[in-house]
């Protein structure tokens, strides 16, 4: 596998105390929660559907997808949870996240460490303060066949 020069801009957000990010190319909008409807028979991490401009799109609870305890368990995060509407090819989904934080640049020449194609993460963005932000591989993230233990 060749390591090409990878760079872009991502939006970072909080999820169960950790920082994650999604490339801005995948993001349609970030909005408040509301109007979620339950559908019987959906997998655990898909908590329902919402109306996005006339289309019915699934809501993925990212905490459940990532195997984290539900946001309801640490109540203070509840009011900030919002939906990040993302697109990957044909698929449009809403990701329920704890709190959107900021947008930042990443570049494999300076601050980005790339993973292989097998993970739901594309890699890690190093912050100047030494912390790391995990950048999602959106295609793998929404593909529920990719199991997260």
């Amino acid at each position, binding site marked *: 596998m060749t390591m090409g020069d990878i760079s872009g801009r991502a939006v970072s957000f909080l999820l169960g105390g950790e920082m994650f990010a999604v490339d801005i190319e995948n993001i349609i909008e970030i909005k408040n929660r509301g*109007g979620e*409807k*339950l*559908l*019987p*028979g*959906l*997998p655990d991490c*898909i908590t329902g*559907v*919402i*109306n996005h*401009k*006339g*289309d*019915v*799109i*699934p809501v993925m609870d990212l905490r459940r997808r990532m195997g984290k305890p539900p946001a309801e368990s640490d109540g203070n995060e509840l009011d900030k949870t919002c939906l990040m509407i993302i697109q990957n090819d*044909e*698929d*449009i*989904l809403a990701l329920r996240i704890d709190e959107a934080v900021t947008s930042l640049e990443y570049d494999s020449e300076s601050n980005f460490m790339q993973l292989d194609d097998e993970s739901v993460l594309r890699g890690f963005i190093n912050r100047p303060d030494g912390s790391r932000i995990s950048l999602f591989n959106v295609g793998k993230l*929404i593909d529920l066949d990719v199991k997260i233990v």
Partner: protein
Amino acid sequence: MAKFEAGMEAMLDMFVFETSDLLAKLDDILMRTEQEELTPDDIGEIFRIMHTVKGSAAMMGLQNMSHLAHALEDLFSLIREDPSIKYDKPALYEMLYAGSDSLKYETENISDESVPLSDFTDQIAQVRAFAEAMKNGGAAPEAAVGSGTPAAVGDVSLYAPDDPDDVFCFNVRYDESCMMPEIRAMVLLNQLAAVGEVLATLPPDLDADDAGEAITAGGLTIKVRTADPDSAFAHLQAGINVSCVTPLMRETKAEAAAEEVPAPVPSEQGQPAEAAPAPTAAPPAKKHEDKGGGVISVRLEKLDRLVSLAQEIVIAQSGVLHNSELAPYRSSMPGFERSARELKKLIDELQDMVMSVRMVPVSGAFSKMNRVVRDMNKTLGKGVKLVFVGEETEVDKSVNDMLGDPLMHLVRNAVDHGIESPEERKAAGKTEEPTVTLSAFYDSNDVVITVADNGAGMDPKKLLEKGRQKGILTKPESEYTEQDCFALIMAAGFSTNTQVTEYSGRGVGMDVVKKNLEKIGGSLSVDSKLGQGSTFTIRVPMSLSVSTCMGVMVGGQEYAIPMTALREAFRPQKDQTVRTPEGREAVCRQGENKLFNVIRLGRHFGTEREELPLTEGIILLCNTSGDEDEHEALFADALTEEMQIVIKPFSHYLARFGLKEKGLFGTSVLGDGSIIPVIDVNEVLRGGR
């Protein structure tokens, strides 16, 4: 490389749409007039259709189509000018049908580069020969057709005495058949701009009304300043329809310059006679477009966008009018309330209107069958009459588009297999005309279309025998009812006619037709009476989008059930309910003894909070798609209201989670923006068995 001229991609859709429309109109006229008199109006109309097709094909650079249309146009120009002219009408119609088909084929395949451009030379020659024969047979209405010699105007020159050496003049001649040469000329000048600066042209104004005639007569003279006259020459020669390019010599160099004074307007004499119809036909063609002023065609995407916009307006409206921030002031704002009601009324009307726009009558799909029957009558000699009933019945455009293939198949089958040969009919003592009847009518939210023939009908025993031979029987022969036998012909690999004809009889198709109909929520059924004929019934939803549903509460959430699936809803009395020792529940209707097993929807969907006594909820009896007697009833907490909703199938992503198998069709977004899941009764029942 695309078949049409570069830069015309934007026009492609319009061209295909208009041309198909015109050709359909042509077919209509031909069908109508084949057995009757061809009125001058019809002749004029055919002429105009051909003229327009010719023009637009030429515009697209489709020479073959343009030439063929031109030949047919000329032919009708003869008939138009001399209505008493004699011709062989059947032969003429045969030729027109063939021409119409060729043009249609070409139009349909224009974007498909794997289909080569057709060569219509033979067809054109045939038409021309026919026209020639017509002229000789009847009184020749027109003076001899021009031999095509271009008028001698090559010496028109634009050179001024003081032009520098890098200024050159060219005279460009177009093919006689070239339509709207002024348009071609403009394109050519644009291309020429790449190699030099165009200083002047003759005719000077290409937009002028007579520019086309002038060019046809005298060619296009171009004065251009260029450093590379050879390349300019090559550019001109490469132009579409250009027959010859003559570089013009400067007068000082030309020997006999003084002999002829350059004429500002090219002489009219020697103008090819064929050019004449074009200008004279222009006014009627315009008039024809005016006639269609009541109808415009809109791209479907635009319409769909309009539909979703109307829906979003409803949502925004309720966001404004029911805004909680307004609540404290509401009682003191009677004017606001009045305006709000007015607004709501208007928006409701808007939504209804937008929905109705997509509805089209089935008559379009029906009248296409005229042609099918006509062609088959020609080959099979059965003289079948096609009758329409209820062709004004409206269906959604998408449904209408889907109907073409099934109808074609069924009509062909009816004419080919259903109707007997004239001899057989005589032998059977049948006196009535062999008829295929297409009818359409509404039945709740469906449109039912039947294709009925008064032919031989089908013998269930023979069908069964055949089914056995083909090995497609699925249960013991004794269990086959008459209906089951008829249904056999819709099974894969079944053909009752041993003779495979041009039109049908390959034994594939009926099953495909059925499958395709089922894909859009429709169905196909057969009934037949031996000796009296067969009836094929297509049932399709009126609209793929809007359906009437009943809202039900299940586990605290509202769901919708299509009305077509519901037969009866009632709240059972205590004495109507029973419970087996295993805990299964069943109900019966008032005063009847038949028990229905109860499927609790809440339990089925896994959303049941507490077990509601049957007597406090609603029992739903359903119309199942299967033929077998139903033994199940659904149970919901409550009914809410009837609603008109647009059912959307699940997105590709959601579809993977087996929602359909779980018993959900899809979802609908209601007027206020909320989402309601729609229940697929058949799947729920299947799951419950």
